[in-house]
């Protein structure tokens, strides 16, 4: 089956910034993404866990976008403007998709 190259951008960001990030992505023309809950983790800013938390302040979410490689810079620029000062991780990896016209 024919596969097409694509980029997978994974942004782990503070839950309170989720709406701001997805707004920025939408404005940059990236309308396809998936948001996953993050149940816990550990990093430079210490440990966090979603268990038992009532507020959103202590939690993180993962936003995953699959896009055509040509659109990567625009996506990273708009995403970085939102996440720059916040706790989180931005990573990019190569991947393949089956239906290129959707990305």
């Amino acid at each position, binding site marked *: 089956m024919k596969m097409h190259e694509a980029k997978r951008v994974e942004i782990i960001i503070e839950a*309170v*910034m989720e709406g701001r990030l997805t707004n920025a992505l939408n404005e940059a023309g990236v309308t396809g993404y998936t948001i996953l809950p993050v149940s816990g983790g550990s990093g430079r*800013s*210490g440990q966090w866990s979603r*268990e*038992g938390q*009532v507020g959103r302040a202590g*939690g993180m979410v993962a936003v995953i976008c699959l896009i055509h490689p040509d659109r990567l810079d625009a996506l990273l620029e708009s995403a970085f403007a939102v996440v720059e000062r*916040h706790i989180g991780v931005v990573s990019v990896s190569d991947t393949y998709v089956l239906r290129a016209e959707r990305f």
Partner: protein
Amino acid sequence: MGMDGILALAGANLVSPIILSFLLGLVAALVRSDLSFPEAVAKGLSLYLLFAIGFKGGAGVAAHGVDALLVAALFAGVILSILLPFIAFAMLRFLTRVPVIDAAAVAGHYGSISIVTFVAASSLLAGRGIPAESYMIAVAAAMEAPAILSALWLAARRGGTAERVGAELWREILINGSIILLLGAFAIGWFTGEAGLAEIRSFIVDPFKGVLCLFLLDMGLVAGRGLRSSRGVLSLGAVIFGIVMPLVGATLSLAAGLALGLSFGGVVLLMVLGASASYIAVPAAMRVALPEANPALSLTLALGVTFPFNLTLGIPLYLLLAGAVTGN
């Protein structure tokens, strides 16, 4: 009341199911038990408590009417919420070496309020048959947000880089879910009055304390986990701050409550509001507006030090202080 009386009251408070549930959670987390509440359950308990306390407050206002004091009490609450962060900031800078941005973020937490501390104090008052103004719950809601402004002003003024507070952040702060549910339930309770309360009493009155116990069990777990994972975050100065600041807030609120002419119960509740620190509304706002501030410091202080202090010793102490001053 002498020292014996103080100890007796504190002792009676400590063996209530509410406090013991909190301690159970705290101990379970500290010994690394796998006891935990899923996030959705914790959120559900919190929604129940906000709805019930708001509704009961509104129904109380409908039953007893509103007096001119309501507006004055709301105003006093807002002023306290704006003022307390400045005192907290100065104390933190004196007692600890935390950076300006962290001091400002912590200060914001201490100007705002903890609704569950308020609920625990209301339960203690109700258990002892001490009436209080039903609209104090509206005062609690009014005290949630103003402190955020003070914190951001302090951060910007003292060299920090506070995010400009745009319309979006204001919208999130002012109509955040907790405030909307609390005030909305208050409005429904006020509108439907005693008859409305009678209809749902079996849901929001009778099981209330049991749900509160479960919620406090969860708070204990979260506080214990925070304390366990943040060794090294809290200096001795910060811990002293976490205990002295509520006393300062309570004392200022005592003066405000007396000047307003609130009832004995109302004064106690205002003291509890002044003494408590936010761990829901303000942390979220601070993460957006002051992202460089260390979230572990504010949350561990508010939830790991000040909340347990208020719950166990603070509330009985405020009750005794207000009683001594008002002659009750």
